[in-house]
């Protein structure tokens, strides 16, 4: 397909890998973080790790929206799903995220009406088809997904739907990046910037990384050549002594983002004072809730959710994985007690989670570990 095939050319890939090799200084260790779960998935799927010199290490960041949802939030969703007359809708991966008393899939097995949707619009359709039921959409995701939820809420308002509401767990990308950069146990040399979040927010919000922290950022697409070229661009900045935000994904990402999307988000959402991230704790102004103008469509207010904070299971090291402090296979329960079929931690749930991506594609080539 156009826009896909030309970015999977093996010969070009080898050429870029050669460029990368020519840019690294022997004896220097390079630690680059790919922020986005989609990149993590692609890196393992296409074996990009194996094309890199041994001293270029990729660290997997907190950009999988399923993986950063804390257990208490899942419990809140399950509590709403068990209310009489509720149809609880969410994305597929979210159904398998474990809460303290099981997952939404377990709640469905126990009799709750939990349904998977591909988009918030599907949830709206279910609400129209079931006027005597309360339909709740469990909204997760970064700025990529938030506009979709915002537009759906505007449609619900326009159509006067009273049996539809949203449990908003959308998060924003910049605050956790700042938290990671402030973290003393993680030294990074550069960032592979999130491609599709940037479609919405643009490249400008990442300028603080070179300005305040002196680290290069290259916004990247998701095909193997995109990621290889982004790595090459970061290493070239480092070799040249430059430090800036560059956009490798120009065919998709405008530097200013999508202004219409930003407008609709500003109308429908407002920042929470703080939001809990799995593994990262509470981060100020990192989560979204419905604005006052849309408060009547807020499921949290409509159903008064418990809002109890639940600690992660002790055996699970998702927090360290999300911060890039350990590799997925270094977790004590990786691939044994915790697998994609029976996940303990969130990183093993979504196909974009670092643990699941590594379990599915990378675990047979582990001898190429970076030291």
């Amino acid at each position, binding site marked *: 397909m156009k826009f896909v095939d030309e970015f999977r050319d093996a010969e070009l890939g080898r050429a870029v890998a050669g460029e990368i090799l020519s840019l690294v200084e022997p004896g220097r260790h390079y630690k680059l973080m790919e922020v986005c779960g989609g990149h993590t*998935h692609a890196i393992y799927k296409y074996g990009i790790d194996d094309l890199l010199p041994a001293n270029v290490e990729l660290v997997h960041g907190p950009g999988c929206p399923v993986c950063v949802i804390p257990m208490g939030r899942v419990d809140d969703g399950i509590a709403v799903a068990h209310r009489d007359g509720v149809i609880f809708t969410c994305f597929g991966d979210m159904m398998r995220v474990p809460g303290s008393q099981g997952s939404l899939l377990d709640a469905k097995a126990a009799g709750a009406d939990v349904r998977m949707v591909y988009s918030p619009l599907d949830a709206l359709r279910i609400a129209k088809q079931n006027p005597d039921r309360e339909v709740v959409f469990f909204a997760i995701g970064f700025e990529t997904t938030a506009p979709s939820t915002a537009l759906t809420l505007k449609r619900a308002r326009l159509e006067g739907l009273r049996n539809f509401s949203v449990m908003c767990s959308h998060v924003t990308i910049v605050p956790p990046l700042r938290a990671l950069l402030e973290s003393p146990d993680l030294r990074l040399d550069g960032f592979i910037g999130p491609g599709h979040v940037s479609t919405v927010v643009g490249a400008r919000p990442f300028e603080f990384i070179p300005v305040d922290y002196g680290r290069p950022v290259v916004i990247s697409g998701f095909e193997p050549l995109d990621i290889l070229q982004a790595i090459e661009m970061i290493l070239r900045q480092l070799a040249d002594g430059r430090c800036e935000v560059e956009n490798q994904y120009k065919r998709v990402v405008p530097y200013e983002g999508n202004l219409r999307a930003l407008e609709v988000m500003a109308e429908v959402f407002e920042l929470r004072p703080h939001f809990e991230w799995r593994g990262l704790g509470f981060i100020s102004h990192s989560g979204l809730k419905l604005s006052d103008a849309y408060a009547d469509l807020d499921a949290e207010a409509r159903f008064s959710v418990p809002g109890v904070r639940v600690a992660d299971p002790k055996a699970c090291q998702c927090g360290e994985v999300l911060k890039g402090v350990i590799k997925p296979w270094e977790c004590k329960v990786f691939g044994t007690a915790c697998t994609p079929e029976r996940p303990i931690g969130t990183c093993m749930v979504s196909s974009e989670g670092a643990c699941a991506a590594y379990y599915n594609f990378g675990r047979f080539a582990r001898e190429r570990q970076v030291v």
Partner: protein
Amino acid sequence: MSADESCGSEHCITCGDDGVPMTVLAVDLDRALALCAHADGRRETVETALVAPVAPGDVLLVHAGTALTRLLEPAT
């Protein structure tokens, strides 16, 4: 249920920072919706309010049922 079954693809198209290119087949201007086709021919109704106006043949980047941007020809 595996991740594949839950999402209908090996890569969850709805949950992550992931968009898929889709081609516009027909447009409903009044409702800001378009019928779009995946590369494999599957069809889906897509919200186009953020990229309107669109026309048949346009290639859009779609995430969670919403078009986020129009794809541009890669520079040669």
